């Protein structure tokens, strides 16, 4: 079984580029050039230099002693929360801004849910002196106010998406419309492992630095490169894609994905795509998505803005369909409880997105000698208001 993208842009039956002709020239140019540009020596050198000196990589692989004792296995945290801008998102935006420069683009657009990808995009645009427009759902603008302020301070324009559920899905629609309207000078930095080919693969490759580091870091700590499990939360699936990438073909490594169940998988307010989705087309790719029998895309719900998306990247749909990955879902309550537990056992306040990954311990029991690597995809500063309201901390 092959888990990586094939030459036509598919993972099994998922992926492809289902885009209107207006987007074809840009997407096709990217498809033809992305691998060549990405693996040029000069590109790799600049990319890795920035990851080291600007982002602060490698991010630590930290043995979480108290969490391990609590859950009876050996838990390591991949500390993407310690990256500059506070999440894994910056790995991809650094890569894509360098790509945009090579393609001669001068204007950058992006969509954002939690605001982490928007901040990471605004950051690299400031770094490179490029114009930056970030589309964000009106609801998300309200619940992620600190990130909106950060983007503005970094010089980006934040444009509200006012249609549909006014969250990540609608922000993505608006960004795509902007790209249709500005086909010549603009590069669209998609933040998740979704979109038309080659986006899912390009984003995954930029994020694959996560699993590349896990391998040598775990070798140092445990004397072996492969853990028993890697665990990540999944919305569109970029941190998961990066966390899994170098383990996809390592059969002994169990791959675990945790989706957002919102108020419960069957509550009607959920974003658990693998449980509720069916194959369809969203944002330019064929993948699992939540939809009505009539093919209208369903409005998802999660307490976490970053997971509030009705689809999942095509690579993940394929991992689900082939059972290469185990899929779980965590409710708002489970994720919040897991976030509080991590805070109080390890002194680390996670993003609510990442809290979903840590809710795995409420669903699955590991063996005492299991080495479990958790993707701690982001830090919780942006979510303080939600934590305060939820736990009545104020």
């Amino acid at each position, binding site marked *: 079984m092959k888990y990586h993208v094939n030459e036509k842009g598919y993972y099994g039956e998922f992926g*492809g*580029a*289902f*885009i*209107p*002709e*207006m987007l*074809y*020239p840009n997407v096709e140019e990217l498809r033809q050039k992305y691998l060549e540009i990405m693996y040029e020596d000069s590109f790799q050198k600049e990319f890795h230099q920035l990851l080291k000196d600007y982002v602060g990589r490698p991010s630590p692989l930290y043995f979480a002693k108290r969490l391990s004792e609590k859950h009876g296995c050996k838990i390591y945290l991949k500390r993407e929360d310690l990256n500059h801008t506070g999440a894994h998102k910056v790995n991809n935006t650094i890569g894509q801004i360098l790509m945009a420069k090579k393609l001669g683009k001068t204007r950058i657009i992006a969509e954002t849910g939690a605001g982490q990808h928007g901040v990471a995009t605004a950051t690299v645009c400031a770094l490179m002196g490029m114009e930056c427009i970030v589309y964000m759902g009106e609801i998300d603008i309200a619940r992620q106010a600190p990130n909106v302020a950060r983007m503005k301070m970094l010089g980006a324009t934040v444009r509200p998406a006012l*249609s*549909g559920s006014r969250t990540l*899905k*609608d922000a993505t*629609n608006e960004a*795509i*419309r902007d790209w*249709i*309207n*500005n*086909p*010549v000078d603009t590069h669209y930095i998609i933040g998740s492992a979704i979109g038309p080919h080659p986006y899912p693969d390009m984003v995954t490759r930029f994020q694959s630095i996560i699993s590349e580091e896990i391998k040598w870091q775990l070798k140092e700590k445990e004397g072996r490169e492969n853990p028993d499990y890697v665990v990540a939360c999944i919305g569109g699936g970029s941190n998961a894609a990066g966390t899994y990438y170098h383990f996809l073909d390592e059969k002994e490594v169990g791959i675990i994905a945790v989706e957002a169940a919102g108020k419960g998988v069957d509550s009607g307010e959920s974003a658990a795509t693998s449980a509720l989705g*069916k194959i*369809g*087309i*969203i*944002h*330019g790719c064929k993948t699992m998505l939540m*939809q009505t*029998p*009539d*093919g*209208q*895309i369903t409005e998802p719900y999660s307490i976490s803005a970053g997971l509030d998306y009705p689809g999942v990247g095509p690579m993940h749909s394929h991992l689900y369909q082939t059972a290469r990955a185990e899929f779980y879902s965590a409710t708002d309550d489970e994720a919040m409880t897991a976030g509080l537990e991590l805070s109080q056992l390890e002194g680390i306040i996670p993003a609510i997105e990442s809290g979903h990954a840590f809710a795995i311990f409420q669903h699955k029991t590991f063996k005492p000698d299991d080495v479990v690597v958790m993707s701690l995809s982001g830090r919780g500063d942006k979510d303080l208001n939600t934590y305060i309201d939820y736990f009545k901390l104020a």
Partner: protein
Amino acid sequence: MTNRINDKMQENKKLLSIYFTAGYPSINDTVQIIQDLENSGVDMIEIGLPFSDPLADGPTIQESSTAALKNGMTTETLFEQLKDIRKSVTIPLIIMGYFNPVLQYGVEAFCKKCEEIGIDGLILPDLPLDVYEAEYKSIFKKNGLINVFLITPQTSDERIQQIDEASDGFIYMVSSASVTGSKEGFGNEQTAYFERIAAMNLKNPQVVGFGIKDSETFQTATKNAKGAIIGSAFIKHLTKEGVNAIPEFIQTIY
């Protein structure tokens, strides 16, 4: 029987095609809108199958789609409404929509239903040329359906040739780099693009869409092309004047 679209393209006149969103303003307006358009002298109609996430459309068509879905429009309802349409309407009818609702209905079942009703063609902007050719072409052909492809000012000559080769009705020429309903009039850039395409002597006639809203833009667009499509401007008119004022709108165009 030859396809009504092909017959229409043979007529010695510039063609006016109108797009509307099925289920808007009210769910049961579909048949009346189609009949009134034909009676007003319109040459061809694009019936919009509403979609929750119409990413190539501007605010007007987005809003009409959202309203249509809220009104309860579904693929099945549309087919039911159109069941007897060929008893009263003779001009070409095209269903325009996004691919996902068609995929969920089943491409084969969808095309078969279109054939039964007397639909002549489909425009599915996010069904790419290569996927159509590899997976769906034979199904379209079997059901006598013409698939209409789009080109834009950014489409390369080489790809236009490819699309021309794959087309057998007309080419939908997107007037400018924009979503529907968002550009103000046509400038030199559009004129140059219209002339460039005309000079390519394609085997398929071209019908221009996006940005056509009145007599002036219709005249400019059809100077070189066979026809033009009005969508957003018509929907705005429906919103403002209601479904009983269709002839008045068409009279302002030609």
